[in-house]
Structures are given as structure tokens and as C-alpha cells.
């Protein structure tokens, strides 16, 4: 049977022909290349290089960016791409989010003409892989206090410090690194092989096992003067990247939830207990109907937000709400689906436990669930509660 994604409110009919075609290309690719191989990749803790090549070949990286070899798609198309990738695995979507929204985007928006021409076309084709270094061992939710610093040494910049939890780090050809220059946060492009730069992999994850996570270490790391992003200062730089990535996650989470819903539905219809399919019991139906309800709401939220991104009428708080809500519902659905599968739910024969474990990371990265609550709290009351200082 072909995969039929849950689409209770017929969002499909709101899409353009090319949005549908792009979605189907990614959907078929996930079906052919990711689903049969994802469990092996997780077991081995690798992100296979063929996936990078295929994703580049499909031309979906940096989806909403225009020019410099980038696709220039609608935000809805970008969202659909994330949805399909994450229906496969959150790690695959993470790869694309980091590359497109966290590395290509800041170069595209804040980079010099030379930087754009040097990196963007080769990143759009997947030839170069990027990573985004914001989080530090001691500064996660409050990156503003970061200690990684850059010094202007006349002919070059000198970077010192360390980043942690960096997706794609070890496999990246370049890193967009946020560091303080004279106390002000600035973006720098560090290339693999730059003197004093290493990116050791972090092992032992129970989540996003097919995604590479690394430390970035800068020990008197020398980079040429033309590697600073000229056009942005302060937290606005990293935060504007996060807005795009979080938007993609709000769609991606729908994909993971659709996968868990389908698996739960099929399992419930075929599993017989007490002489009847468990799908015939009211408690199980209640769970399935709750999943249907939450996924449908999440889809509408993501779709509408895409339209607002396209016409430029969005505010960051709307993205916070969508990221927080959709990841939360997807995680709850993954847990519920795991429950419906009984003991089978813990096996790698079904996608649910993998999605569940992945979504724990997704809940934390790109602003933790509660940090988004605080963003909304500040929006509602006008009072910030991130810190006790006024």
C-alpha cells in the first residue's frame, strides 16, 4: 500500500501543483532511501553520505532562498519538504534545517557578495555541508552570555572558545560560528582545516542517532579577515536564523506525528486481543481520534504560518507557538502510538520509538519548549521572565 499521509482537512487542495510535486519527490525518496536504511544508520550512528548527495541532487537545500543557485521556493514548499523528511526521521530533517536555515540563510542575508558566491551555490547542491555553532557547554538557553570570543589581530581574527551540541559538526566543510568581538556577538565563517579548529563527534546519544552531533573547539584559531559576516551584530543574527529553522520544525513535527499515527492505526486494526481488533475498543479509538485532532490542528497552524511567512506578515512569537505546539503534540502522539503498539512498540520494526526518542531532542533544540512559553509570556504580558535581572 502506498503511504497515505493523514490529511483530514484536505490541506492538499490548498497546495499548488508544484508544491505537491516537490512534496511527492521528497516523499518517494524517503520511502525508497530512508525508510529501508534508517534503522541501520541509527544503529551505526552515521548519516550516510549518499543521503547528502541525494538531498543535494533533489535541489531542496536552502529552499526559500532566492538567487546564488538556491531554489527560491515558497515557505509552504519548504515546510512540506521538512514534513516529508521528518516523516522519515528527525535526523534527516535536522541535516536539511541546519544546512538551509542556519548556515545558508545567514550567509545569504548577512554575508558579503563574495561570501555568497563562494559558499551558497555549492551548499545548495549539497557539495559543501555546513554547521551552526551557537550553543556552548555553559550557555544553552541564554546564548547572549556566550564566552567564545574573537579578537582582531590586524591581518586576521583569532577565535577562542568551544561550542557544543553542534549538528553536522564533524562532517561539515564550514561552520557559521557566533562569537563576541569586543563584547558584541558577530558571525564568523570557519572552514574545515583552519588552524586551531577541531570538531570531535559527541557519542552516546539515545536520540537523533542518525544525525551527527559534535563539539567545535577553537584554540587560537586563525581565520582571514573576510570571514566575518559584515551585515549583522548582536543576537539578532543567530535568532533570525532560528526563526526559519523553527518554522521548518513546525512542519517536520507534523511528518513525524503522521508516521506515528499511521503505524498506530494499522497496528490497532490488525492486533487482536480479547477476540477483537484493539481498534474496536473505545479507549484505543479515543487515542486515535485525539491524534487525528492534534495532527489536523498542527497542520493548519503550520500551513497558515507558511502563508504569513510568504507575505511577510509574521511575528517571531507566532513561530514560537507553532514550534512549541507541534513538537509537543508530535511527542505526545509518538508516546501514545508506542503505547498502542504494546511491547512491539519498542522494536525497531516500527518507527514509533525512534520518532519518540528523536522528538525529545527536537523539543529541546531551537529553543526549548519552555523558552517558547517564556517568549509567549513576554508577548502577552510585556514582562520578560527569562532572567531575574530587570
Amino acid at each position, binding site marked *: *500500500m*502506498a503511504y*497515505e499521509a493523514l490529511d483530514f482537512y484536505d490541506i492538499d487542495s490548498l497546495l499548488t*501543483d*508544484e508544491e505537491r*510535486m*516537490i512534496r511527492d*519527490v521528497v516523499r*518517494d*525518496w524517503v520511502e525508497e532511501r530512508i525508510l529501508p536504511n534508517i534503522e541501520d544508520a541509527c544503529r551505526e550512528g552515521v548519516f550516510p553520505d549518499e543521503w547528502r548527495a541525494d538531498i543535494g*541532487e*533533489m*535541489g*531542496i537545500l536552502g*529552499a526559500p532562498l532566492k538567487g546564488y543557485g538556491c*531554489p*527560491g*521556493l515558497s515557505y509552504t514548499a519548504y515546510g512540506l519538504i521538512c514534513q516529508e523528511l521528518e516523516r522519515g526521521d528527525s535526523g534527516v530533517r535536522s541535516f536539511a534545517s541546519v544546512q538551509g536555515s542556519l548556515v545558508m540563510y545567514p550567509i545569504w542575508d548577512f554575508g558579503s557578495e563574495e561570501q555568497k558566491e563562494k559558499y551558497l551555490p555549492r551548499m545548495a547542491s549539497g557539495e559543501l555541508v555546513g554547521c551552526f555553532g551557537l550553543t556552548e557547554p555553559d550557555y544553552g538557553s541564554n546564548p547572549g552570555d556566550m564566552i567564545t570570543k574573537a579578537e582582531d589581530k590586524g591581518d586576521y581574527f583569532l577565535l577562542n572558545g568551544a561550542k557544543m551540541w553542534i549538528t553536522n559538526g564533524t562532517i561539515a566543510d564550514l561552520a557559521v560560528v557566533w562569537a563576541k568581538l569586543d563584547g558584541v556577538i558577530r558571525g564568523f565563517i570557519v572552514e574545515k582545516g583552519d588552524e586551531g579548529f577541531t570538531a570531535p563527534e559527541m557519542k552516546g546519544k539515545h536520540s537523533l542517532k542518525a544525525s551527527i552531533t559534535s563539539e567545535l573547539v577553537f584554540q587560537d584559531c586563525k581565520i582571514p579577515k573576510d570571514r566575518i559576516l559584515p551585515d549583522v551584530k548582536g543576537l539578532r543574527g543567530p535568532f533570525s536564523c532560528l526563526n526559519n529553522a523553527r518554522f521548518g520544525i513546525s512542519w517536520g513535527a507534523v511528518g513525524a506525528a503522521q508516521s506515528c499515527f499511521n503505524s498506530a492505526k494499522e497496528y490497532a486494526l490488525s492486533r487482536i486481543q480479547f477476540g477483537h481488533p484493539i481498534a474496536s475498543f473505545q479507549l484505543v479509538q479515543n487515542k486515535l481520534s485525539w491524534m487525528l485532532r492534534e495532527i489536523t490542528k498542527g497542520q493548519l497552524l503550520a500551513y497558515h504560518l507558511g502563508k504569513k511567512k510568504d507575505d511577510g506578515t509574521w511575528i517571531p512569537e507566532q513561530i514560537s507557538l507553532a514550534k512549541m505546539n507541534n513538537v509537543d503534540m508530535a511527542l505526545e502522539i509518538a508516546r501514545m502510538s508506542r503505547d498502542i503498539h504494546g511491547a512491539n512498540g519498542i522494536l525497531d520494526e516500527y518507527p514509533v520509538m525512534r520518532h519518540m526518542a528523536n522528538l525529545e531532542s527536537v523539543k529541546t533544540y531551537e529553543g526549548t519548549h519552555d523558552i517558547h512559553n517564556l517568549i509567549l509570556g513576554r508577548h502577552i504580558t510585556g514582562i520578560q521572565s527569562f532572567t531575574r535581572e530587570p
Partner: protein
Amino acid sequence: MGVAVLLKQVPDTTAKISVSGSRVDESAITKWSISPYDEYALESAIALKESGVDELVAITCGPQRASKCLTEAASVGADRLIHILTDADFMDSCTLQSILSSAIQRSGCDIVLCGKQAADTNSGSTGPGVASLLGYSCVGSVTEISMDGSKISATRLGNTGLEKIEVGGPCVFTFDKGEVELRRPNVRGIMMAKKKPIESIGIEELGIEIGSPKTSLKSHVSPPEKPPGQKFEGAGSIEIVVSKLRDEANVI
């Protein structure tokens, strides 16, 4: 020199087919696709284009929804798209062949590629029928094709093994599933396909004489449901199983 590829839109091979009244219920089909053998024809047509054919023309005959086949073909490299529009739910093979021949003449192509049969009707008559109407040669069940100057060589599965055939003049090649990997469209192709115009032509505009069809479709019937399997447990049932395999299934 141009190459035409004939594409038929059929229910996806994974779609659930149900019969309502005496016809397949099309409204219940959620996914329509290019007929799988036609996809191999399309892949080979793109390969021919890459080895020097001037123009690749994709042709389909069917209702409005069938234009999706053409856009898909454009997204992987078709240059011109011709859609013969019809809402007929059944078309006599001879009628279809005249329509397609006329469209091929319009395209000016003298190499024609299509699937060896369509996944829905399985009739297998389109390629040879079109070839005979146009007076072209026809090579069937081809798995690979290549071009050298004005000559085309095709590999096909013959009675005794693989046959290599060389063709000089106008020819229709019908395709079987081969070893070649089908390419997947990429975003750039899809965005370019969006801009490619489709020549939509009504059958009456073709200006051809279509005689009254000799065959008509009476009804569709679902295949009978398979009886449920039988289960035997324990060594005691060996005798019954053996006798059933011998007398009922006739396999031992």
C-alpha cells in the same frame, strides 16, 4: 531529429481499485501515475536527448488530470508537451492509435518510445498499432536504447536471450522494465516544468477521420475475493496436508 514519448496516466499500482456499478470508481483513486513501462520509455527518451536528439516531445491522451504526466516529463527534460484532451472513459484501441498517430505526425518526430503495455488495460496494442498506422518499423520489449549517428540500436529480450537490433528509419520502440535506474525530478526541473506550456488539443481539432469504434466496454468486475487460508497444526495433520496438496492444489 525528434523523439516522441507516449505517456499514459493510470491509477498508481499501489492505489486501491473499487468497482461501483459497472465501472471502476475513479473518484476513489487517490493517486494517478505515469504507467510504469512508459516511465522506462521516458527515461530512455531522455537518454537519447542527452546523446544528441534535438527535441523530446511528450504526448498523452486523456482527461484534464493526465496533464500531470506531461509536467512530470517536463521536469525531467521533455521540451514540448502535447495533450490530446478527452473525457471518454473507454477508448477503442484503434481510435486511440489514430489519435496518437496524428499527434506524432504533428510533433514531427520519427522516433517514438512508449511502454510495452499500460498498467491498467494491459492490452499492449498501442505501440504496434501506431507503428502500422504511421508506416514505421516497430521493435518491442526493449530494455535499452542508444544512438550512433542516424542509427539506433536497441536491446530487447528475445526468445533465446538478449537481442541487439539496429534500426535506420522511423521506428516505434516499446519498452519493458530494464536495469536502468529512473531519474527523479529535482526542484529546478519542477520549477522549469511549471513554465512550460502544454499544447492542449481536442480530438476534433486533430482533423482526422475516426470511424465508429468496433469495440466497447461493457463492464468492470472486481476479481473474486480469495478464500481465506487454511491452518493446520501439529504432526497429526501431516496426512491431511499432503492429501490437500496433492488433490486440491495439485502441486505434489
